[in-house]
């Protein structure tokens, strides 16, 4: 969804923050470096590292962003465990949008890749879906920004 949001928003952002975390800097997203450092520390759970990341995010972005980021971290700690614990397959749309991301971000190397299977029909029509989706997102974003 990050890539879809980037395409929709027309922002000059990169996906490197996903794979590299805070090493990628802000990756074109406001407070991106501090947000990924905070997410990493919250998942790892080391108290000292987390306190440092929390203070840095709060100082740069404010308390409201800190609280909302903590909420998203908690929510996705839950989501990944539901996905991995129930062995759900990829949705058709997600599969079409993420096929080349697997290589770009090294996702195809993950253990859970063996568990999470794509729908064979989606795989067959993947190039068509992906082209339509990318174009559709750009057009929708452009039209939405024009209306504002």
């Amino acid at each position, binding site marked *: *969804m*990050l890539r*879809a*949001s980037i*395409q929709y*928003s027309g922002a000059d*952002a990169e996906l490197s*923050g*996903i*794979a590299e975390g805070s090493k990628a800097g802000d*990756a074109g997203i*406001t407070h*991106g470096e501090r*947000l990924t450092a*905070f*997410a*990493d520390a*919250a*998942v790892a*759970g080391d108290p000292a590292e*987390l*306190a440092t990341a*929390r203070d840095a995010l709060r100082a740069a972005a404010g*308390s*409201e*962003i*800190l*609280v*909302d*980021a*903590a*909420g*998203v*971290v*908690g*929510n*996705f*700690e*839950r989501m*990944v*465990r*539901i*996905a*991995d*614990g*129930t*062995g*759900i*397959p*990829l*949705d058709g749309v997600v599969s079409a949008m993420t096929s080349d991301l697997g290589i770009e971000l090294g*996702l195809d190397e*993950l*253990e*859970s890749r*063996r*568990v*999470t*299977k794509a729908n064979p029909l989606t795989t067959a029509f993947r190039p068509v879906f992906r082209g339509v989706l990318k174009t559709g*997102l750009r057009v929708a974003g452009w039209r939405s920004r024009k209306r504002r």
Partner: protein
Amino acid sequence: MSPFQNSELHLPIRPALLAVHAQLLESFTRSGTWWTGAERRAIALEARAASTCGLCAKRKAALSPFSIEGGHSGPGELGAEIVDVIHRIVTDPGRLARSWFDRVMAEGHLTEEQYVELVSVTVLLNALDVFACAIGSSPLALADAQPGSPSRVRPATARIEGAWVPQVPVGADGGDDWTAAYGDREYVPQIGRALSLVPAEVALLNLTSESHYMSIDHVTDPGYSEPDRALDRLQMELVASRVSAVNECFY
């Protein structure tokens, strides 16, 4: 008043977040669909203990998480096999495999329905604790278990549709079961259907998504942002994607 013990930071926690946290905490202590209130509370406390379990830390560091035997540290109010399932879900979800799930089911300590409800309680408690820790607070205390019996209602239409566990089929195939869980929606992503074998847990999942991230109806609309959030959509998706990547979650 916020129940989070963080007097130094004085963080402005949205009322919607606090309300859902209170609702989730209460849900851990009352009877569910397949577990009693005492059992759900025990699952939640075991999930809380997993993050500091020595055996789980050794397994996480090992080449194969199934190569190291031993006992988990925690309250131990549930059977050892059930405790092991809870700890693995919390501490090493990326290496859970179909063969592991099949073995758990074959052992006969859990039914599919109990497993789905256990996953839900485990991950919801973990989400609350991660949130508390992230803002620099202590975990929220659980009240005593409430009396009552599980309702034991299974959606009649639930069937295997690609996941390890049965799910309510989409739309007309799911009939009243689909309508009860998802209203007039024509499509719900797999992540929103994963727990549909126990519809009451789907309701808790939706509440949590809406308050911490966004309504499941808006997830596939990349232009949507919840109006009361400090994070914009790009920032939200960056944090979400990074958490998934660190957890090595392919989905």
